[in-house]
């Protein structure tokens, strides 16, 4: 017998309301109770053993011992409740979750601490004055970092000017042109991204100052930063180009386009937003670099707006030089500058996220207007 089952044709929509969805809980009240009880009893045990019975002391050690006792206890309880396999799973979950949360909190705390130490001595004069007339004994709020901000902008800007064409073209080579050299070059770009930052500075110093006689300047700093920025931009841009679907390229080639036109008109425009993100990430990577600047920009308490001649200051370098003076005033100014630096990095990163979050192929406002105009002309 074949049975026809309701609903016969169109199921009535009104019925939906009375259905009770199954609630699936991985973590129920008993688990929460076990977790809490274990945490508490581990604390008590730890306190008893640690503080009373053995001659141990010290805050951090106490918490490490507590965590170990807690995990052990929770493992035993879960084993009693649900068997050894589930116990392992539970303990693993607790370890992963606690580690993940502690890491994120600890690292955010680093940023928070810099903000906490830096923000209260930040006055508007930080953006207008320099350290020219400020000595080690001046007040913490005296002087400013205008010269360092100018220097950072010029140095990083020049480095960006150097790296954007080079990095994007290198990525185009790796991904579009290819050939025998692509694989070794990719390895080499990886290797370059591992060059210690101080060696980038030392190399520029050795090659241009000692060998060619060029003196400290913002331009040398920009060159040193380029060495660090180039592999970042290249790799990030390469990843973006790889995301452009191959069918698009072949479609354009099949229409009879030359490789150059296919790159310029299909691949690069499609990847445009990703490329911008790649560049911003590259900037964020080098804007806080200190070590290469020691050998190239050298530092300067006065404003030097000309990046091609004379020593120049930069924010990270200023922090480094101020912090090395063991006095309250300069150290506080270093914290203030570090706060500003952190804000700059955060801002760059947020911009990259906002732009990059729109995904490939997104057409921005300006671009849309340009396209409209072109279409109207045609």
């Amino acid at each position: 017998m074949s049975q026809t089952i309701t609903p016969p044709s169109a199921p009535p929509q009104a019925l939906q309301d009375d259905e009770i969805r199954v609630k699936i809980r991985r973590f129920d009240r008993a688990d929460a109770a076990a977790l809490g009880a274990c945490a508490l009893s581990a604390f008590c045990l730890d306190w008893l053993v640690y503080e009373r019975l053995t001659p141990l002391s010290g805050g951090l050690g106490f918490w490490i011992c507590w965590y170990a006792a807690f995990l052990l206890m929770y493992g035993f309880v879960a084993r009693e409740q649900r068997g050894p396999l589930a116990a392992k799973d539970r303990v693993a979950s607790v370890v992963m979750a606690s580690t993940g949360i502690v890491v994120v909190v600890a690292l955010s705390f680093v940023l928070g601490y810099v903000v906490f130490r830096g923000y209260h001595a930040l006055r508007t004069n930080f953006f207008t004055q320099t350290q020219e007339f400020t000595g080690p004994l001046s007040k913490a709020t005296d002087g400013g970092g205008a010269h360092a901000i100018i220097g950072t902008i010029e140095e990083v800007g020049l480095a960006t000017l150097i790296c954007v064409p080079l990095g994007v073209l290198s990525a185009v080579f790796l991904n579009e042109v290819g050939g025998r050299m692509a694989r070794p070059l990719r390895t080499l770009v990886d290797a370059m991204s591992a060059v210690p930052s101080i060696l980038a500075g030392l190399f520029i110093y050795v090659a241009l100052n000692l060998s060619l006689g060029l003196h400290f300047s913002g331009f040398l700093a920009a060159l040193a930063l380029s060495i660090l920025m180039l592999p970042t931009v290249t790799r990030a841009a390469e990843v973006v180009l790889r995301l452009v679907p191959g069918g698009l390229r072949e479609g354009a080639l099949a229409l009879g386009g030359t490789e150059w036109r296919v790159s310029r008109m299909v691949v690069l425009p499609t990847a445009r937003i990703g490329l911008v993100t790649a560049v911003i990430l590259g900037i964020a990577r080098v804007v806080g670099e200190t070590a290469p600047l020691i050998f190239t920009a050298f530092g300067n308490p006065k404003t030097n707006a000309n990046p091609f001649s004379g020593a120049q200051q930069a924010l990270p370098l200023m922090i480094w030089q101020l912090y090395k003076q063991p006095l309250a005033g300069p150290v506080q100014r270093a914290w203030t500058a570090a706060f500003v630096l952190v804000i700059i990095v955060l801002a760059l990163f947020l911009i990259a996220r906002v732009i990059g979050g729109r995904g490939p192929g997104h057409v921005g406002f300006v671009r849309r207007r340009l396209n409209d105009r072109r279409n109207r002309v045609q």
Partner: protein
Amino acid sequence: MRALEVNALGFTWRSLFCHICRLESLGPVVATRMKGRNYVSSSVEDIREERLEIRVSRPPADRVYRAVARSAGAVTLVVMGLIFLFLLLRSWPALRDARWSFLTESKWNPDAHQFGIFALMILTFEIAIVALTIAVPVSIATALYITEYAPRAVRRPLTSLVDLLAAVPSIVFGLWGRAYLEPRMVNLSKWLARHLGFIPIFKVTTNTFAGSTFIAGVVVSLMVIPICTAVIREVFSQAPPGEKEGALALGGTRWGMIRAVVLPFGRGGIIGGSMLGLGRALGETIAVALIISPITDKTIHIIQGGGNSIAALIANRFFESSPFAQRALMAAGLALFVVTLLVNAGASAIVSRSRSGAATEI
């Protein structure tokens, strides 16, 4: 009709077509993908198939385009070569002076012509090892937390946050390590020395705990964790969902599934991320220079004050040194350069051979 033609790429197919049709020189354009595919007929060896040789003659524009892209790629090669060459040339007098003892000598006293990188290299590696001992397990756990455990809604924000923290300048970590962490770590160091002093590395011979390899290593580990986590997370997130479902459908727990599928798949990423972290830790300058109390003798007592790294030594000493000592420091820099390159090459080789190699960005 118009609306249909405009696709998401921001140009119209028709305009693309028009542009290409208007091209003056349409030389034969052949995709060169055919190369390297050979069909071997093993049974009948006598019959030699004649393969079509595809000659590509490119239009001039394409030749220029290829040449430009190629020379941009060559810049990387040239720069890397120049770094090696210049450091070698400049440090040559010092290297010639020290000869092979440069690799074996433990003292760093260039002005007395007695110097070598043996002790410095060991001190450098000590910091890196402390950093990685903490960073690698923590990064793996954090990456697993983000990809497998965290509630779905917070995964993207957490990923962004980790990427952001990877961009925090090292000087910021240095400042924080010096001002906040060091005074607190000193207590832990004392605790370790008192209770675990019987283990050689926790033994102390002096009573100073500030500026130790241990503290510098912990700060460097905090800098390395976001970088490692970012790489490892990326690879974990690409673990094949089909295999993950397969493991769960067999009755595996989440941890069982991770051990059977995610960790084996992500091995390349774990190694790649760790090696990347190692490279960073070996070359870290500013954070180490801010924290460490510089010494140049080798020691294994990592929790007592005093340690060093080649990068920090260069940053701290360079401008105070005599010309000959500067050359010696350049030689040390050269050694650091070679070591970081070796570490990185090793990482690339291991990663490219692993299954998740294609997905690993280092």
